């Protein structure tokens, strides 16, 4: 997937993004749409990875960008737009993570242009063609990883997601979550310890 503007993590907004924001603040609808497109892939990816449900990810997307639309006037360029946007997105995701019960029946199907694909199947079959033992090991590993992630608090989950999968720096993560870099470091350490504990001799 092509890297979007969110790839410019922690950096000040680029001049292009800057002018898009200013135009959108003046009510330019097309500029707002371009602004959304510059960041929405990473927002959706974050929501998908955290919530594992296309429906919930869709809700997060909609709510986040509607909030951006309503509140863009209040953005004063005193932090990067990416940080500002992610404050909104992470708040919504954390709310979801806190409220949701783990849905055992959660769909394993993801829509793609080629139709639905089964994530579990992809995982299980990876490198396991014609190797039932490997397939079984993969399946077991997948189960352990899910259990390991369930052990994390929503905040640990979020910090880990942003650092490991989204590649953000802990300083930025702290800024987004309204905490310090030190607290984000502690969170990452606890998350790693817990996962290592659950995954045990699998890794």
């Amino acid at each position, binding site marked *: 997937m092509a890297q979007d503007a969110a790839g410019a993590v922690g950096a000040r907004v680029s001049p292009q993004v800057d002018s898009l924001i200013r135009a959108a603040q003046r009510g330019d609808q097309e500029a707002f749409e371009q602004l959304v497109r510059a960041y929405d892939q990473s927002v959706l990816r974050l929501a998908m*990875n955290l919530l594992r449900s296309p429906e919930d990810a869709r809700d997060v*997307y909609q709510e986040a960008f509607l909030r951006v639309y309503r509140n863009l006037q209040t953005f004063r360029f005193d932090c990067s737009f990416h940080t500002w946007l992610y404050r909104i997105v992470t708040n919504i995701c954390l709310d979801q993570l806190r409220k949701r019960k783990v849905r055992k029946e959660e769909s394993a199907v993801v829509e793609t242009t080629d139709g639905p694909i089964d994530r579990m199947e992809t995982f299980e079959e990876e490198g396991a063609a014609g190797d039932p033992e490997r397939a079984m090991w993969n399946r077991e590993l997948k189960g352990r990883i899910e259990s390991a992630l369930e052990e994390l608090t929503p905040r640990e989950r979020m910090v880990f997601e942003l650092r490991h999968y989204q590649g953000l720096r802990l300083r930025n993560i702290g800024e987004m979550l309204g905490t310090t870099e030190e607290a984000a470091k502690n969170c990452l350490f606890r998350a790693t310890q817990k996962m*290592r504990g659950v995954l045990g001799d699998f890794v």
Partner: protein
Amino acid sequence: MSCDSVSKLIPLYYYGELTPEEEDRLDQHLHECADCTAAVERQRALAAALDRRQVEAPPLLLDECRADLMAAISSGAAHAEKPAKGPWTLFLEAMGVTFMGFGRMRQPIGALALVVLGVLLGRLSGTIPGLSPASTLPSDNVISNVRSVKAESDGRVQVSFDEIRRREISGRADDPDIRKFILAGSRGDNPAVRVESVGLLKSQTDFPQAVDALLNSIVGDPVDSVRMEAMEALKPLAGDPKVTKVLSQVLLTDANPRVRMQAIDLMATHRDDSVVGVFQSLMQREDDSVVRLKASKVLKDWNASIGTF
């Protein structure tokens, strides 16, 4: 540097979050300590295992999100306008639409109204900082649910609430705009709307989005009747490889034996080797005797062996 203090730094070391000085000290320790070097390797292995769990947002989902967002904005929904009527009024009016002319056009209007209900009672949640409640909220009970109340450091209070809005559209089921709503209805919160929507998609299986929606309902919908209705809708495509793949998944994972039986019925209409393999796998893991019997009968009809050797 002690091994104990190093172990706390290893995750940060792996993620490149140490200061250059800390990193130098840790590198030095690693040169001299096999245990800590092994711990770094375990951290790498953990990260590699977790890498495999990542999913990308599917392009189709992204397109749909973008379209939904722009539709919400252009319809004015993003401004959190004050609804003129309370939720009960809206609900009763929606029911009025449902039953108006019921005898004359029972099915089309009934089906359409259910979709309308599902779509029009869509959730819209958000915060409106900077606005005082008195200026934005009507005096009646338009607020259906307060999601959160949070005190801000400057003494203000941020409130997040759901707001129910209603819009109406009507048209033929194969109209692209109507189809969009039917697709949304098929994945909405209301199971009755999902059943109706899935039923309406039955006549639209020449559209890939409709087929994908049905396949997703088959695998992902928590309500048995929706999954079965979706399978019924895909009957004309029973031999399609994509459909077969999803039916195979249902057969091996669905918790409801009736759903598994229906999957067998559909898959039995087109013999191919992969289906034989799936039925044979089923025979090894199926607990329900009726389902086993049905699968074994199909295998027998196809002159295939019951088990794999």
